[in-house]
């Protein structure tokens, strides 16, 4: 074995130990050998790079498989780190964007919730005010079980009521007529209202409701007979507000969709279309319904595409946005867009059609779909399909 062969074996770490020691000793004493070693290291590295890089053209493989009657099964690209990095970065970017978007939407949604709740509190306060019951011409102010601080809140709330509005409410009552009334009166429904004093202020230490004598002409539509009040009569009735509170569960804004599609290739030569294969063209999506008509979701899609007679079965992950229009007899125009990434590249899906609400929670979709699979490795290529899409959606 000459020195070059020995050095190459040394580089490849296949040299027997005895020869290795001998060669290392030789290298220590010979500059020529050391120069040869550095050149051979470069040579081996260059050969390795070439071995990884040299490959037959894809069209040659496609033609060969076609001639032999085989279907190429795409292998995981060797050393395709950049592609993986691309996918990873795109996935991370999409995921980050989606999380940000969902966070903003949730924030907006939660803030929106506080408005009706505030309305509810105000209404509740009014309810406390309006719990006074009329018996004959008397107003019996029912002692509220509300805690003192709540009362103070209500009192503070009253302070904010504009004086003119109060005057309107208290029309027919002379503020100075009855000192015991302390400015309180009754509205047309016989409920207690507040009237500000001359300084337009209401004392914060509102006196306890007391029995008030009313004049005969004070209330026109007061109930003329005495009404017995059962002990168990609820003090407050908030039935109208309850659905609004119960319906605000976040899970109610989510829905799950499972879809099947079957497409026919529209751009790849030599493709006649494929037999129906539902398990190779599926999609599963979790949607967040951020408005009445639009939903945004995370989606997983498994499809089959063919490029140059090579079948690709990419598993795609991405985001989906769906639209569902105004319903009429359960039917509504609908559509969705999916953008996702997969190992070989990316996938775009656009579906449009009609959805039908089969039950309050379940809707069906049937439409036309366009799919474009982008192969982003060495040479950019794509495969387009058009076909029918069916999906079923369950809304929580």
């Amino acid at each position, binding site marked *: 074995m000459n020195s070059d062969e020995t050095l190459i074996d040394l580089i490849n770490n296949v040299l027997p130990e005895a020869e290795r020691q001998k060669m290392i000793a030789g290298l220590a004493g010979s500059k020529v050998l050391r120069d040869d070693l550095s050149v051979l290291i470069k040579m081996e590295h260059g050969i390795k790079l070439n071995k990884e890089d040299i490959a037959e*053209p894809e069209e040659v493989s496609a033609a060969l498989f076609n001639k032999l009657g*085989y279907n190429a099964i795409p292998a995981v690209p060797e050393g395709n780190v950049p592609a993986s990095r691309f996918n990873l970065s795109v996935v991370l970017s999409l995921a980050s964007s989606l999380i940000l978007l969902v966070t903003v939407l949730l924030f907006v949604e939660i803030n929106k919730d506080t408005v009706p709740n505030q309305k509810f509190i105000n209404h509740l306060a009014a309810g406390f005010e309006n719990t006074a019951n009329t018996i004959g011409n008397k107003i019996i102010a029912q002692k509220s079980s509300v805690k003192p601080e709540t009362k103070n809140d209500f009192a503070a709330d009253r302070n904010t009521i504009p004086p003119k509005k109060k005057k309107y409410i208290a029309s027919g009552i002379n503020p100075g007529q009855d000192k015991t009334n302390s400015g309180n009166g009754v509205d047309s429904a016989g409920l207690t209202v507040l009237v500000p004093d001359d300084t337009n202020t209401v004392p914060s230490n509102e006196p306890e409701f007391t029995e008030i004598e009313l004049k005969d002409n004070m209330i026109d539509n007061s109930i003329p007979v005495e009404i017995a009040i059962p002990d168990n009569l609820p003090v407050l009735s908030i039935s109208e507000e309850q659905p609004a509170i119960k319906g605000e569960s976040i899970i109610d804004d989510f829905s799950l969709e499972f879809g099947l599609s079957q497409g026919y290739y529209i751009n790849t030569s030599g493709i006649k279309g494929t037999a129906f294969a539902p398990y190779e063209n599926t999609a599963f999506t979790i949607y967040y319904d951020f408005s009445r008509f639009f939903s945004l979701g995370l989606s997983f899609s498994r499809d089959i595409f063919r490029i140059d007679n090579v079948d690709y079965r990419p598993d795609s992950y991405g985001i989906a946005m769906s639209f569902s229009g105004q319903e009429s007899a359960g039917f509504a125009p609908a559509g969705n867009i999916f953008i996702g990434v997969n190992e070989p590249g990316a996938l775009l899906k656009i579906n449009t059609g009609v959805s039908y609400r089969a039950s309050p929670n379940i809707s069906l979709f049937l439409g036309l779909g366009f799919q474009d699979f982008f192969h982003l490795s060495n040479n950019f290529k794509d495969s387009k399909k058009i076909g029918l899409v069916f999906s079923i959606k369950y809304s929580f």
Partner: protein
Amino acid sequence: MKNYELYSDKELVGLLRKKHPVCNNAFNILYGRYRKKLFSYCLFLCGNRDYASDLFQEAWIKFDASAKKGTEIEKPLPYLISISRKAYLYNLRKESARSKIIECDCNENLEDIIDYSSNENDIEKKELMNLIKTAVGNLDEHYREAFVLKRFDELTYGEMSEICGETVDCMKTRVSRATSMVKDYLKEYIKELI
């Protein structure tokens, strides 16, 4: 589904006689194992990408046909290389003029032969790759073949001698001389790269 990746070459060749999809899967595995090495050989042998593609396809088609006929093939790569080599030599003899064209392509367009469309952006690596293929392309045919069979296709000297019809010692000598010539060629440029 069976994991055909774990099958030996001999077992996979035997499966090529089976029906679809077994033969399809077996062929895919064998093709994945040896496509690059075979194409490297074809490319360095003829120096022309289109011609190399023809040799490459012919080798696989004949290999598949032989396997289906029941031929025992224990080592697919030497078998495939032998088919390519025979086809190349046959064409050389048939069309002597063509060899001149091929040699011309080999010397003039080597940079275009190898597919550099990968994500490799390192200029230094590309320079090194170019140097290697130029150095190998400049070798005489026998030396080039021996060098490629040994360094690129990683065949044993025994397999090489069977393919080339020469003795093992002859193949060793050719590889050794080819290596020395490539090294000398690189030496002139390597200092710039180091």
